[in-house]
């Protein structure tokens, strides 16, 4: 399980390698919030290497999204497999986050 952060100006991409769940939600939130404190405004979470997420992971995304929007930024999710998409649909949280096919789509979108 690891998070890889790639920062480019005010853009941050976080690769989630493994599952974003209760045991790492705090670390994940803290890593992203630190970057937001230091100027990141477009945050893309890349789930290409992630199988699923639990309610804690979803909750972390909800609260991060709010914090980032409050800072004038945006949180975008990319490369979700079908199972991950299902979780966002079941919880209707897909209404809250734009879901992109790839990180590049997410970064390129207006």
């Amino acid at each position, binding site marked *: 399980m690891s998070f890889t952060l790639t920062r480019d100006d005010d853009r941050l991409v976080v690769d989630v390698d493994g599952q974003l*769940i*209760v045991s790492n939600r705090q670390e994940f939130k803290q890593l992203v919030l630190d970057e937001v404190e230091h100027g990141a405004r477009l945050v893309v979470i890349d789930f290409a290497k992630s199988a*699923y997420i639990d309610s*804690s992971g979803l*909750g*972390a995304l*909800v609260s991060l999204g709010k914090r980032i929007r409050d800072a004038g930024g945006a949180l975008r999710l990319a490369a979700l497999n079908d199972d991950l998409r299902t979780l966002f649909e079941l*919880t209707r949280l897909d209404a*809250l986050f734009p879901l992109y096919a790839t990180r590049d789509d997410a970064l390129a979108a207006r």
Partner: protein
Amino acid sequence: MSAPRHDWTIASDVNEIAPIVEAVAELCAAAGFSSRVCRLNVPVALTEALANAIMRGNSNDPRRTVHVRVMIDTETLVLEVTDEGEGFDLERVRYSPDDADWFEREDGRGVFLMRKLMDHVESCRASGAYGHTVRLRLRRA
């Protein structure tokens, strides 16, 4: 040849969750449950139940343990997660996307997800048994 393990006792530490979830998903795969169920429904629902047992039932108290039991037969999967807490009234947990703050609150989606991913979720403090048990049931599709 010995049968694969079907029950575990773990400390109240969320880092214990992932290995158990993986082992249970393997049991389900071996029993012929669909790969979707083994990849999504079982891991997520079990993670929720374990997280609640550790954090809510046992209040993260490291001296308290959580017991997990898996039953699989030709028709049904049952997962039992037992903590040392007082239990709670599952019927009163009704938080859903229809609630005003659903799109803002960080917590509170665990039971909702378990219900969506399993056929049946129940909670009980059994007379004649130790602790409080959440029982998840899923019929083979």
